[in-house]
């Protein structure tokens, strides 16, 4: 049963990254591809009805960890407390960025929420990669199964490594470029292609130039 649940959790994480990954990619490219307000309207509408549903996969993974592997849940949620809170705020920023943008039809208001949405998307893509990097690299667990890592120390892989070091930054950058390219592929596929001057930039982002 443990192996089955390991496979289920992997499947759920993949579903989250694939589905919410293009939302995050659209967020990263919003201000780069959407040169006019009309373009940005179309881009946000292309993820509008699905972004919140896609994020539920992440919540479900948290819920599943709670009852299948409670020791992992307790250990990682306390050890990664600071980065998890940062991720939570970034998810909130993305959500309110989309939902508040259209409330007032004012260019400054829209600009603020668009930049917040893009900024949160960029950081979120990097933080997910950093989290994955930490899991791959390992953490300083004690015999009781607990650990603490500061956000960063010396950026080197030493026993007292922080959450952010040169290795996790590399994985964070891979995550950023992967999700950007994934979002670019979605933008070409889903919204009607009528971006004022961002079309050429868009073509550079897709096709895996960064891979």
């Amino acid at each position, binding site marked *: *049963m443990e192996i089955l*649940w390991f496979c289920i959790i992997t499947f759920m994480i*993949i579903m989250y990254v694939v589905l919410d990954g293009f939302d995050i990619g659209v967020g990263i490219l919003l201000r780069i591809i959407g040169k006019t307000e009309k373009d940005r309207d179309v881009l946000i509408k292309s993820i509008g009805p699905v972004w919140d549903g896609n994020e539920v996969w992440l919540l479900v993974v948290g819920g599943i960890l709670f009852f299948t592997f409670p020791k992992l849940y307790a250990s990682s949620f306390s050890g990664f407390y600071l980065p998890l809170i940062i991720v939570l705020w970034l998810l909130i920023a993305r959500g309110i960025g989309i939902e508040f943008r259209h409330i007032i039809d004012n260019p400054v208001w829209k600009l603020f929420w668009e930049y917040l949405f893009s900024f949160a998307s960029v950081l979120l893509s990097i933080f997910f990669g950093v989290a994955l990097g930490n899991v791959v690299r*390992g953490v*300083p667990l*004690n015999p009781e199964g607990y650990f603490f890592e500061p956000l960063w120390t010396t950026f080197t892989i030493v026993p007292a490594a922080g959450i952010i070091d040169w290795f996790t930054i590399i994985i964070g950058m891979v995550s950023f470029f992967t999700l950007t390219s994934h979002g670019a592929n979605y933008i070409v596929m*889903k*919204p*009607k292609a009528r971006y004022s001057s961002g079309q050429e930039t868009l073509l550079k982002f897709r096709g*895996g130039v960064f891979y």
Partner: protein
Amino acid sequence: MSIVAIVSVTIITPNIWKNFSTYPVGTIFPILGFVSLAGMFFLSIQKKDVYAFVSSSIFIGSMLSVTAYGLFPNLLPANSDQNYSITIYNASTDEYGLKIGFLWWIIGIILASFYFLYLYRSFRGKVDKITTDIEY
């Protein structure tokens, strides 16, 4: 970036490739990853947008599968002492809980699948400002 990442992972945790040599069936994941990466590149040149997006999705899925397969049975490896690592065996709840949870998961995933099928089916096609009524 992919090559830099693979080299760094090999430097930091060389054991991650151990499962692939012990159980070679898992090599399907990195192969799938590289095929989908190449596919995404060529499909986007040929302007087959839907297939390019599917390739991108497969690439992400296969790379995460490579990570999971390499880490197994670890859930959270310890870099202090390997014996302290959290694995699927020392972190799981009891067998009864896992079985009951699986039954509920089946019900939940069926509901979620129908919801997502309905959502993406009703949202199919291209989006522009005129065809979308919802304000965002």
